[in-house]
């Protein structure tokens, strides 16, 4: 009889702690959302490298919210400790009002600890290190004017900031939402963790979704804002860039940006360190590690824990819908301003610049440059804009990091 009672108690205990008892409807909705995202990642291959860990992190946190729980310390009196069969030795004590309390720590969930890399702003700069190793700034050095296009495409960030303020977001939140327009995942995460960490899930998911949708979002805007004649411009071949110039570039850029805008230094600094690994040619092993193993490890941690911030209670709010709409506006504005400045350059250079390369100023490397190439080739199959578009494209990465520095400084 005693055995049966013990068995019944154990089953009851397991049932009470199970998800069936503890989860609420928001968690179930989010489990559905994460399964849809997993489907999109696996079947449709929408940014699977990020979407898959994000969706799975989302699934895990909604099945078992404690996986993101922060560590806590209970203060127990001696009597409470004895009642709960907790040994008194080995516990730190605190005296409050002449009563001695024993500190009884409970540990956080697995993803809580991995999330510290996001929360403390460690992962995004490390991702930038890997990106730096993979980026060729050659097209930008041979045509520095493309930095203008990289700057123009950041205007969307600040315009969206205005929209977010008027929709009732705080300054800090509006800054984090606006940065979606920079179309740069690590930058968006970095800024959001500093300015509005409670919005991280919505902002990261919006940013990565729109980056995946670049080939769908950009072409209609590009066609609407340019004429057939402008789209058909064949640009002059870029001059070759010497190795010395490529080696000097990261050093000079980091000096200039870190001196004038220290808030952008972590992102730009790591990007340029990675680039120097690549261009110097003397630390090949480091370059390989930064762009392969290190970047893959960080991507796993970053994706899973960013997904895990999207618990039902956090994510299923009206703010998320507003963020998704504002993010789309930010993205479209960035593309549009890049194109409009491309048109200006077309005018000023007497038709030597194809305005289509302007839309590549929204980072999203190298997807946005590919879109410029593709739309250009639709008008003139013999036109190869890819390398010309890579200039504004990598300039966009620097531009969004600078814009991030400005936002952190002004509203942070």
């Amino acid at each position, binding site marked *: 009889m005693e055995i049966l009672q013990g068995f019944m108690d154990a089953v009851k205990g397991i049932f009470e702690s199970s998800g069936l008892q503890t989860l609420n409807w928001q968690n179930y909705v989010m489990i559905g959302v994460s399964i849809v995202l997993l489907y999109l990642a696996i079947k449709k291959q929408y940014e699977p*490298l990020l979407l898959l860990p994000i969706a799975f992190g989302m699934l895990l946190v909604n099945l078992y919210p404690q996986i993101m729980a922060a560590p806590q310390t209970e203060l127990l009196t001696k009597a409470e400790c004895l009642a709960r069969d907790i040994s008194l030795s080995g516990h730190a004590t605190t005296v409050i009002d002449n009563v001695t309390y024993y500190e009884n720590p409970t540990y956080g969930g697995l993803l809580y600890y991995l999330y510290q890399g996001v929360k403390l702003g460690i992962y995004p700069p490390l991702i930038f290190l890997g*990106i730096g190793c993979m980026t060729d700034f050659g097209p930008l050095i041979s045509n520095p004017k493309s930095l203008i296009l990289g700057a123009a495409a950041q205007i969307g960030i600040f315009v969206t900031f205005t929209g977010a303020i008027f929709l009732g977001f705080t300054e*800090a939140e509006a800054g984090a939402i606006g940065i979606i327009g920079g179309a740069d995942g690590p930058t968006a995460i970095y800024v959001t963790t500093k300015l509005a960490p409670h919005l991280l899930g919505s902002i990261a998911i919006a940013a990565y979704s729109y980056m995946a949708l670049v080939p769908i979002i950009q072409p209609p805007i590009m066609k609407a804002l340019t004429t057939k004649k402008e789209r058909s411009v064949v640009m002059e071949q870029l001059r070759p860039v010497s190795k*010395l*110039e490529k080696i000097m*570039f990261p050093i*000079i850029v980091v000096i200039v*940006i870190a001196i*004038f805008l220290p808030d952008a230094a972590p992102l730009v600094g790591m990007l340029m360190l990675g680039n120097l690994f690549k261009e110097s040619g003397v630390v090949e092993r480091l370059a390989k590690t930064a762009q392969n193993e290190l970047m893959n490890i960080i991507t796993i941690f970053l994706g899973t824990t960013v997904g895990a911030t999207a618990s039902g209670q956090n994510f299923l709010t009206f703010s998320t819908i507003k963020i998704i709409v504002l993010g789309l506006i930010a993205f479209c504005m960035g593309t549009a301003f890049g194109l409009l400045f491309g048109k200006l350059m077309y005018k000023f250079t007497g038709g030597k610049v194809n305005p289509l390369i302007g839309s590549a100023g929204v980072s999203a490397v190298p997807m946005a440059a590919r879109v410029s190439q593709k739309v250009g080739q639709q008008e003139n199959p013999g036109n190869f804009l890819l390398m010309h578009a890579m200039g504004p494209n990598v300039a966009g990465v620097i531009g969004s990091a600078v814009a991030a520095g400005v936002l952190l400084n002004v509203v942070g």
Partner: protein
Amino acid sequence: MNLSNVAFLAHTAELSLADKGITSAKVVLTGFIIVFLMLILLIFIIKIYSSIVTAVQNAGTKSKKKNVKQDQTITKTEVTAAPVIASETQTLEDGVSDEVVAVISAAVATMYGSPSKARIKSIKKSSNGGRSAWANAGVLDNTRPF
């Protein structure tokens, strides 16, 4: 949500429409001007150092050429890009076939347009053990979200 966010929330709740306008105008103006100034500054710096590097390297090549002519010890025959002249004395590594020379010369000729602008002095296999162009394309393709 931490305390500073709560404070911010309370702060914006009090903002009037005019205040919101002023706040956003302030951020838009600052952001717009600083981002452009920084990148324009970079344009000038890149242009300046590029021209210095090019000038220094050109000077270096010229003095080298002079020395070679004076000593009459020309070991490398300069091959003009177009039309391609691959002479026997050209510095070529083992395993670089004439077809490869032709392809490289054609590519150089296309890049520079005019035959007078470019000369191929030697063709060496890269000792750089890094990824090939195709492998790089593969990596870029697989890491598109960044």
